[in-house]
Structure formats: structure tokens, C-alpha cells
């Protein structure tokens, strides 16, 4: 059937804003924010992001790494993974963050991928990216592995409308470190940035709201990150655990634990933290109890049960690593 008329697609616009106000306005109007472009451009190509143009944030700067008063490390949202990994300030202040940024994806990607982009990347779920329609794809609904069954080995294990595994290692570490994000509107805890999705969005950011920097407290204590992936590089974690802890007289005085690869957002494992407080980090039974507490409520789909064990092992190892670095 011939509908007549001009069938050409509208032109695609590339915009370079001069101020954050201008950027926010353009973003509110539906332009897709472009930082490193390692995910945004892929999403456009796959049809998972729909926009009539991109808004290149790079002219705005936002890439300084500085230590602020009060022991806060401030990282511009457009700092690249490579810049963070090689920054002396980060390596000295929060070594775990530098190490994790230095292991993201591949050297080529680390040279362009940004901190903000890493936190806000879309799910790496094989269904979402593989051309299946789901609640997170434009115009889609449901969750194919939950509705139809099928391979769930790379998915999360906590129940929800979406069972994708959030891909960011950096976000997991930042949650454990108690970091915050500064946006064009407000400051929020990284822990609060992501939410359980009931539609395409998995953050609480409003339309046009842009992340400008990340604040990381360099408080006393040590941190560690443990992850497992099925390839030595360029693979997202099947499961991961980040821990920051402080001990006092051989006992865990303060601990934060975050889990990755298990849910559509990084998980703060508060029950595990409670279970650990006051425990001897050398007490393996206490660590096991904490790991169990961290996974309370997990209900893996068939095939993903192994992630329970992975996560338990990683939680214990991350606590042990953090405690070891503190002792050392």
C-alpha cells in the first residue's frame, strides 16, 4: 500500500552545548546525552535508544579529579576510566576504585568510556540487547526469560519485574565506598541512584538531569573488590562483591558491602553488614553467615542458581581481602 508523501527520515542532529543549562534543556527535549559513546551509540544502532540527535557533553569539561576538603575525592563525570585508573590521587586515596576502573572492558574502551557513562549504562542482558522485546525496550513489555523460560545463567537472581544483571563494576564499588553523585539538580547517594526498574529506566534521574560529578569519601578503613567473569577481559561480572571496612581492636567496627551482577541495580547488603558488625574478620563462620544474609531473598531462575555460590564466595573473599589490607 502506497501512502505517498516524503518517506525520508528526519535529519540526525549532533549538538555541542556551551553550558550545563543549555545541556539540561536539550536533554529535557529528548536529545541523547553522549559522553564516551561506547554504550549510547550502540543503543542507537540497536534501536534500544531512540533519539533524533545526540548531545555531546564533552565541551562541558566535567573531567577534573581533585581532593576536596573533608577528605572527599571529587571526580568529574566525564573523567575516563583510564584517567581514573592512572590518577595518583585516586590510587592513593581509594585504590580499589582505581583498580576497578583499570580493569573495565578493554584499554580502547577505557580510553573513552566515562565515569558517568559507566554508572548509567544500559543493561547487558542478552535478551534486552539480543532483539527480544521486554519491559525495557522501546514499546516492549514483559521479561522473556521469566515469561517464556530460557537461558538465565547471565541474569540476576533477585526477584523483580526485570532480572537483568546491572553491569557496572564501578557502581558496586562506589556503593560500598558510600559515594555520592552530583547532578544538575541535586546530590544523591550512588546507592540511591539506581532503582528496581518497572520500565525502561533503572535510575531515579529525571528527564534532562545530568550527572556532573561523583564524590567519594576517603575515610579511614580499607576496601576490596572481588569479581568473577567467564573471560579474562571484556566481560561483565557474573557476580561481584565490594567491601569497605574498619576494624577496632580486631573487630569489625564499620562495614559496607555491595553486590554486583545479581540484580538490575547494585545491591547494598545491609543485613550482611549488620551480621558482621562486631565480628572477628578471621571468624570464617561469621563471614559465611554474613554472606548468607547478603543473599537472603534471592530466588534465581533455573540455571542461575550457581550465582548464589559465586556471590557467597566473593562476599567472603572481599571481606577477607579488605581485612587483610587493613591488617597489613
Amino acid at each position: 500500500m502506497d501512502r505517498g508523501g516524503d518517506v525520508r527520515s528526519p535529519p540526525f542532529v549532533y549538538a555541542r552545548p556551551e553550558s550545563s543549562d543549555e545541556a539540561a534543556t536539550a536533554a529535557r527535549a529528548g536529545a541523547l546525552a553522549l559522553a564516551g559513546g561506547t554504550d549510547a551509540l550502540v543503543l542507537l544502532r540497536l534501536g534500544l535508544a531512540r533519539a533524533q540527535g545526540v548531545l555531546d557533553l564533552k565541551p562541558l569539561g566535567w573531567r577534573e579529579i581533585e581532593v576536596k576538603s573533608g577528605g572527599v575525592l571529587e571526580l568529574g563525570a566525564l573523567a575516563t576510566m583510564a584517567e581514573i585508573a592512572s590518577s595518583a590521587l585516586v590510587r592513593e586515596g581509594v585504590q580499589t576504585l582505581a583498580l576497578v576502573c583499570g580493569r573495565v572492558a578493554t584499554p580502547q574502551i577505557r580510553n573513552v568510556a566515562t565515569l558517568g557513562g559507566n554508572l548509567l549504562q544500559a543493561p547487558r542482558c542478552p535478551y534486552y540487547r539480543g532483539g527480544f522485546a521486554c519491559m525495557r525496550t522501546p514499546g516492549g513489555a514483559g521479561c522473556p526469560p521469566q515469561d517464556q523460560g530460557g537461558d538465565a545463567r547471565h541474569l540476576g537472581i533477585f526477584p523483580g519485574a526485570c532480572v537483568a544483571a546491572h553491569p557496572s563494576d564501578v557502581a558496586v564499588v562506589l556503593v560500598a565506598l558510600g559515594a555520592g553523585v552530583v547532578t544538575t539538580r541535586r546530590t544523591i547517594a550512588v546507592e540511591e541512584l539506581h532503582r528496581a526498574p518497572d520500565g525502561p529506566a533503572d535510575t531515579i534521574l529525571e528527564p534532562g538531569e545530568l550527572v556532573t560529578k561523583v564524590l567519594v569519601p576517603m575515610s579511614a578503613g580499607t576496601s576490596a573488590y572481588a569479581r568473577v567473569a567467564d573471560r579474562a577481559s571484556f566481560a561483565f561480572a557474573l557476580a561481584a562483591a565490594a567491601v569497605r571496612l574498619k576494624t577496632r581492636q580486631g573487630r569489625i567496627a564499620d562495614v559496607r558491602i555491595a553486590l554486583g551482577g545479581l540484580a538490575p541495580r547494585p545491591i547494598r547488603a545491609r543485613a550482611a553488614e549488620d551480621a558482621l558488625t562486631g565480628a572477628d574478620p578471621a571468624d570464617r563462620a561469621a563471614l559465611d553467615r554474613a554472606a548468607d544474609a547478603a543473599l537472603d531473598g534471592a530466588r534465581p531462575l533455573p540455571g542461575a542458581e550457581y550465582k548464589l555460590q559465586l556471590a557467597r564466595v566473593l562476599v567472603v573473599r572481599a571481606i577477607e581481602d579488605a581485612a587483610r589490607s587493613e591488617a597489613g
Partner: protein
Amino acid sequence: MRIVRQTVEFEGRRREKLEPVEERVGLPLLEKTWLVGRPSPRVDGIPRVTGAAAYSTDVVLPGMLHAAILRSPHPHARVVHVDSSEAERLPGVHAVIHSGNVQELGPLADQARRTLGTTVHFVGDEVAAVAADDPNVAADALRRIRVRYEPLPFVIDPVAALEPGAPEVLPGGNRSGHERRRRGDVDRALKKAHVIVERSLRTSPAVHHAMEPHASVVAWDGDALVVWDSTQHAYGVRRQIADALRLPLASVRVVNRWIGGGFGAKQGMSAHTLIAALLAIRSGRPVALALGRREEGIATGHRPATVQRITVAADRGGRLVALRHRAWVAVGAGGYSGPVTGPTRDLYACPNVETEELVAYTHAGPACAFRGPGFVEGTVALELAMDELAGRLGLDPAQLRLLNEAKRDPDSNAVYARKRLGECIETGARLIGWKGRGPAGSGRGLGMALEVWGAGGWPPAYATCALQRDGTFLVSTGTQDIGTGTTTMLALVAAEELHVPLSRVRVVLGDTAAGPYAPVSAGSATVPTMAPAVRHAASECRRQLLEVAGQVLGLEPDGARVTLENGHVKAGRKRLPLASLGDQLGDHEIIGRGARGPNPQAQASVFGAQFAEVECDRGTGSVHVRRIVAVHDCGRLIDPLTAGAQIEGGVIQGLGYALLEEGTLHAPSGRPLAADLHDYRIATAMDAPEIEHRFVGAGEPAHGCNHVGALGLGEPPIIPTAPAIANAVAHALAIRPDETPMTPDRILRWIAEAT
């Protein structure tokens, strides 16, 4: 010409063939060499790594259009209606073809219907294609084609596909092949066996993902057609294109000068090449059609999934008394499978062997040859079972394998051209430190596996070698260099024979207009096929040259006592540089023509042993392959650097097959779950282990195969890698793997099963 009957082996299958033989191909065996066998960097390495090499998609022609293919989202459906009117009206679109308008192609409509049919058989099957001014317009046009499908029931599991009442993939049933082979009496032997091991194995589909995706550029040159194609067989594509378009063979030229890998997925004319040609006819313009990575992942072939059961049995002393191997293979819609049970018939001496292969069509992309087809899948099952057998007998796995070495081909009783597998095993065992292997379950594991593969090549193949007036030589042949170093190796062989420095020989290949017929670059056949043809051409060129030189120097007219040495013709004290001879001849050419002679009676199998050292994490199921020692024998080496590169590539690809690669479909929908390189995990540089390789008898020619004494090495290196790693993982964790790839989820399951 005379005709001989001979045995030819291709991708693990042997057949008898009549071959016409050119006279004078019976050169003496090349014994001592001065150049062949010395490490020689690739003669074309620099353009390959600087980007100067023009691969198919680098070809840009005036007025060239870019094509794209609309593919089925359904595993099985009837294409009820295609509405392409909006796409056709998009400015910049020059042609749209699909099942609803192919009749406009007139006499070619039937050909077009084979590709763009009214039934789609897998997710990714071709439905429509467009040619437009640029790739973005073409992609835009695809989105404007509206297709109405009537989805039909589908089946993707090979066992289910063969059950009564399964949805039919192609008319005529889902049984693509059913091959049963037996020697001796397995049932009787099992009754008397001392130890019987039974194993099952499920292997996943693996996708080639050559660095260069499939691509073709098709253009008319008057009434002749020129096709730039990323293919492993220029002459094969020429024949298939000419057949499909009803053109005289001589009116089709195929150029495949630079190829970024094939691994078996580029052995013949692909659907997209025919589509590009039809669009070129429809639009009257040159058309480029390059597939994207996702298309590579779903529609250009893969190593088929298998379900296998194997029984191995031995007597008290460890001698094999029975082998039984059954494999179900899912080959997709009209695909191909290599002989999965081949290694069970060929690798060990065993009097009683039964093999059965049930090959099923399924609603998936067609499977095709993939480096060592069948043998890669089958050797995993066989070698896992052999290790378990060794454990049950209380024998060392290396010792068990040495004990059961076949002195002649166990299936045909043919004599081997050369077999030094025992030396491969002993060398590898020494290098990996096999003696300190220790007990199973320590977290660190050592494992080994063997390999057998037919790699003798075959006729026909031709080459010419022409003396140029400046004293250099031009070797021309219709073979191709798919990335393996063929250009370098053939130049070495010609320079060896002509006794000139390598820089004085130029090899032109990858163009049917530039060189005579050569077969597909597959089946580990290129060196054993082409090296003798090129040596013959060079030798013929030399013979004529010496004849002429003798007369120029005022000596015997037959060239006796005139020799060719280091770029000079020499007779007694007289010496004449080749350039002076060329000068005197002017534009008169001296052209030698060479042909590949017939295969002799010996069984040209190649063998190897690989050893893996792994570290496994019992808590997480992670595997780190620390080291692979690979010891192979493929006769004389032409270039040890290229041979080493084949080992390294094969081992890394084999590691991916063992641990990472899984081209799975989503069972409920038939859609691919790992179409791109994010979800389909090939090994990265960080996964590559330390690889140590050795070649047994590298400097000595293999006797009884061809006069260069070289056999093939393209496929052998990948065959034993996955089973060696599997045995190492089994040893490290004291587990029984029954599935590949061995991902953490599966390893944790096996650990749980073992405790």
C-alpha cells in the same frame, strides 16, 4: 594425460576419485633445502597490518550502491506478504528484491527464490534486500519494508528434530544423514572387557567470527561479471555464480586478493553474494554487500551442536577392546556436519568399533565446516573417556595412549605417509612436566589429548612461473591466501627451486583472471596441494631457462651442465646474472606450467599431542589456562613462523571452544542469544595462555605424500586443545565434565556432582 584412481580425504572424509595426471609432475622428493624451512616473515605482512591491503569492502567503484538484507525474526514462518512500496520510494534506494517481486527478474527468478523464498527456516533467514546510495539509506529502507509472517512450529534440538511428528525443516524430513560404521563386534568385546567407561557430552554451537565479515562487491564489466568476494575459493564462487546467473564461466571473474580469515565459513558462494549479484542486475550498478557482526553470528554458518555418547573398553593390560560412539548433530536448515565420530574410528588401534551419526536439520542457521569439522567435537568426547579409562585402569593417560597407538590407519589399514605421534607425546610430556602431574583434585591440573587429521591435499591445482626480463620471477595461481601465509610459503617454494633470493619471486594469487585453477583453501590442503604445483611450475621454468641459457652461453643446447645458482646461470667458469639473460631475451617469456600430481597410496594423516596446564578455582568454577604445549608433526615445514602462527591461532580458538564460546539459541523462541561479540565470547589476548610449540621432524620431508614432503597444518592445532583443557580441568577438580564450553556454572555443577 593418463587417468589414475586415488583416495582423496577432505575434512575427515575419504573418497575414491579418478584423476587425470599431467605428465612430468613426478619430481624427485625435495630432500635438502637452502631456504624452505627457515623462518621467513610474511612477504605481505606490512600491507596487512598497516591497512594498505584492500579487502573486499575496501573496493569502491564509481556509482557503487550499498546493499542490506532484511532477515526473518521467526525460526519458521510462511512469508505471506511483503510490502516494499515505501522502501522503494525512499530517495537513494535503487532496487528492492523479495519473494513478492522476484518474478521481475525473469529467467533468474527461480534462483532468487532459493534465497528469498516464501518460507523462512531460521531467525536470520533472508527475506528481502535493498541496494541504496549509502549504507544508512539501505538500513533505513529495510525498516520500511513491511512483512506479514505466518509463524509455524519449529524445532532446534537434534534429538527432538528426529522424533516422529517433529516440525519439518525442509521438505523430505529432518534426517540429513545417518551414517553407521562398524568393524569387529563391539557387543562381544564389551562382554569380555576388563574396564568399560561410558560418557556423554553435549557441545554447543560455535561461530567462526573471522575478523573480516563476509562481503562481496559485484560489478559488470561490459557483459562480464567481476565479483570481489571474501571467499576461501575463488574458482568455486566463479562456478557457482556462473551457474546461478547462467553466464559462461569465462565471463565471470572472482577476486579474493585479501581475506581476513574464513575458518570454513567462506568455502563457497554465500547467499549474500547471489543477492548482491541480483541487485547489481536489477539496478544496473555495482553493488557492495558487507554483512554486519550480528549477521555473521546468525546466518553465515557455525560448528553444529552435538549430543554424544561414547563407550570405551579395555582389557586388563589397557589395550582398547571396544569403542562405541554415537552422535546427534543439529545442522540447522540445510547445513553440513563434519564426521563427529571420525576420531573414534581413526585415532587408536582397536579391533571393535561402532560409530553412528544422526544428523538432523533444525530451525537454525545452516551449520558449515569449521576448522577441523566433526573432529573437534568428537575428540572432546573420545579423549575425556580415554582419561577416565586410564584412571580406572590405574594407568598414566600418556601411557594408555602410547599403548594404543595405531601403527596403520585402523579404519582402512592403509600405511601412513609418516607417523611420529609417540615422539610428539613424549616431547610434550617432557615440556609440560608431566612426571610431576600429581593427584587429581589439587586445583592445578595437567591434561593431554591427541589429534589425527587427513591433511594430504589433492589435485587438480595449477600454477605458472614466468621469468621476467629483469631476472625476477612471477608465480601465478588461482589459489588464495585466507590469512594463513600461503603467499609467503609459495614464494619460498618457488625461490627454493629457482635458487634465487625470496625478494626475486612475486606470487600473484586471489584472482581467477590472474592465475589458473586451484581448489578451495580448506581441509588443511593448501600447502600439500599448492606447494607441489608451484614447485613443478618453477622447475619447468628452470628447465626451459637452462636450455636457453646453455645456448646463450654457447654450450649444450639441452642445458646439461648449466646450473642456476644464487640468481645466476652457471656453466663451468661462465656465470651470467639472470637479469642479463632476461635482457638478451627481451620480451620473450619463459613460462613454466605446474600441476599438482596424484596422491600416492599412503594415508596422509597428520598427528599431534597437546598438553594443558590449568589452575581452577573450586569456589567460583573459574579456569585459568596457564600453559599449552603443542607438539605436532605435519611433515616438512615450509616456514616455521607461519606454522607457529597456525598453532597459536588454533590453540586460542580451541581454548575459546573449551571455555567460552556458546552460540546458543533461546529454546522457547528459536532466537539467538549470542549473536554479537558481546554475548558470544571469543578468547581475548588476556585469555591466551603461554603457548609452547614444537614440530617433530620439521626439517625432514614426509615420504609418500607429495614431492615437497609437506602436509597440512590449518586444522590440526585446534583439534586437541579443548579435550586437553577438559582433561586438565577434570584433573584439577576431580570432576567429570559433560558439556562444553566449561563455564563457571557448569564447573560448579560438576563439583557438586562429584562430592
